[in-house]
């Protein structure tokens, strides 16, 4: 399982990459593996929207299940990966790269500090056993 050291993670399997004041978010390798082949992606907020941590970031559907992606941080949406809707399989093939979902200008950087680092997330995944 791939868990990049520079990312932060949530208990609901989203990842966050912070560069300056901009957070990029997506779902982890663990999440895509659990979901199996993703066949549908819908990103909820649009560019310019102000969003709150815990709100809806996206909806994913695989052949097995539908899953919500939660917003790990609050702020203003500066970019949305519109290409993902046409290539949902990217979530499986490149979850930390081409399958990024949103870029958010952080309004409360303290939220990032509360997230798990890679080591803690790895332990969290192991705890769940699969």
């Amino acid at each position: 399982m791939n868990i990049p050291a520079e990312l932060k993670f949530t208990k609901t399997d989203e990842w966050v990459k912070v560069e300056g004041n901009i957070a990029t978010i997506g779902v982890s390798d663990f999440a895509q593996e659990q979901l199996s082949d993703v066949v549908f992606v819908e990103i909820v907020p649009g560019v310019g929207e102000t969003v709150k941590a815990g709100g809806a970031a996206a909806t994913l559907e695989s052949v097995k299940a539908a899953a919500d992606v939660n917003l790990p941080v609050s702020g203003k949406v500066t970019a949305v990966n519109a290409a993902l809707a046409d290539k949902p399989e990217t979530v499986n093939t490149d979850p930390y790269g081409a399958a990024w979902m949103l870029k958010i200008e952080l309004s409360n950087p303290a939220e990032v500090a509360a997230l798990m680092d890679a080591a803690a997330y790895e332990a969290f995944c192991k705890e769940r056993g699969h």
Partner: protein
Amino acid sequence: MSEKTIFELSSPGRQGVRFPAPDVTPAELPDESLIRADLPLPELAEVDVIRHFTALSKLNYCVDSGLYPLGSCTMKYNPRINEDMARLPGFAFTHPLQPIETIQGSLALMFQMQEWLKEISGFEGVTLEPAAGAQGELVGVLIIRAYHQSRGDTKRTKILIPDSAHGTNPATSAMSGFEVLPVPSDARGNVDLEALKAVCDDTLAGLMLTNPNTLGLFDEHVLELIDIVHKAGGLVYGDGANLNAIMGVVRPGDLGIDVMHFNLHKTFSTPHGGGGPGSGPVGVAKHLVDFLPDPVVGIIEDATEEMPPLYGFVTPAKTIGRIKSFAGHFGVIVRAYTYVLMHGAEGLRDISEMAVLNANYLLSKIRHAYTLPYNRTCMHEFVLEGVWPDVADVHALDIAKRLMDYDYHPPTNYFPLIVHEALMIEPTETESKQTLDAFAETLLKIAEEAHTTPELLKEAPHKTPIGRVDEVRAARDLVLCCWIPEEPVK
């Protein structure tokens, strides 16, 4: 697939029906541009049409062909007497717009069915109107909303859904305008009470409880759970899809559940899964009776010494309104009524006891060969993990597909989501010991195959008209039209 489509069987000029020569003056054709010459209507003889559809029907798998252990769906045998009763001319040839004086028999049957469902569930009022379980859920949650609104309690915007609930519950709540909040299960598969308490506040509208839950487990703290929700001012919705496990033993109304739907097409043996429409009556506790959909069947003139009572349609005082045309799926209600009448009170209890016994018997025969994540005595169904730690790359889906090679309908798979690689098995009470033994042997054989010849599972099914379908491609490249004209339509 061996059977061609009816379009491929078509032969130009062939006819199934020959019309006699007209004995009246032919009418003028309407605007010719409305006649679509491009439609490729198949041309076949009657015998070829009959053979085509008979061949297709033989490819179908149904509960009349064999065991259908589709967890959560209660695919029990549908007794033929139900069909006989639904076809009685007095039921079959009535119209819902007839004057009520001319359909007293049908109304009496509906009234009695409402009464029986009240007795079975411990509720004070029942509507038979909802078309199926999902609409029953919607009705139930709309009643919860109407209840809070009628009290001016408008801040209650949140519905809690345990992660062991049926998948339709969150959709129902969202569709009714509520915010949906999941509640986790504890290690024994019960609702986690501490997690529940943490989210109970004055914005709580209710909780949707599936009990027994989708793990096939009866919540060991159900009374405490309901009490917590009630103390926070919320109502408890009961998902009655698993009623087959507790009928005649536990009454949801007695537990304190406020509103619940029934699935007549599950618990009460009416056709199911493409075999006919469902029916999802809703039962409510006393404080919700006034909110039931319009209309319910009631007695509008009491019986006298000479006359029986006059049954009719009654509008509840604070009704959420009409939710379905006419009086629900009446023909299905006749079948369920027949089922209740054939079994009686003791018989209904036997059904649930036998459903639970059958599930536990089957589980006891196979549990050594499979992983049972929640190791408890089950109710009417159980959930396995369809993977083995010592077998790489064999999944629940492969087991499900391999079962088709042995002429069984696969169990529900990948649900509930809280079990990794879930296989959810519900044999129902209508299966004999011999059928259960044979199915258990097959499951054991498949477990052995997984270890010795895993490719048999991975490439399954081998003996069906169509092999393994590409589910990913089917979901990504949707073809929503069965026929695309070669030339543009004029």
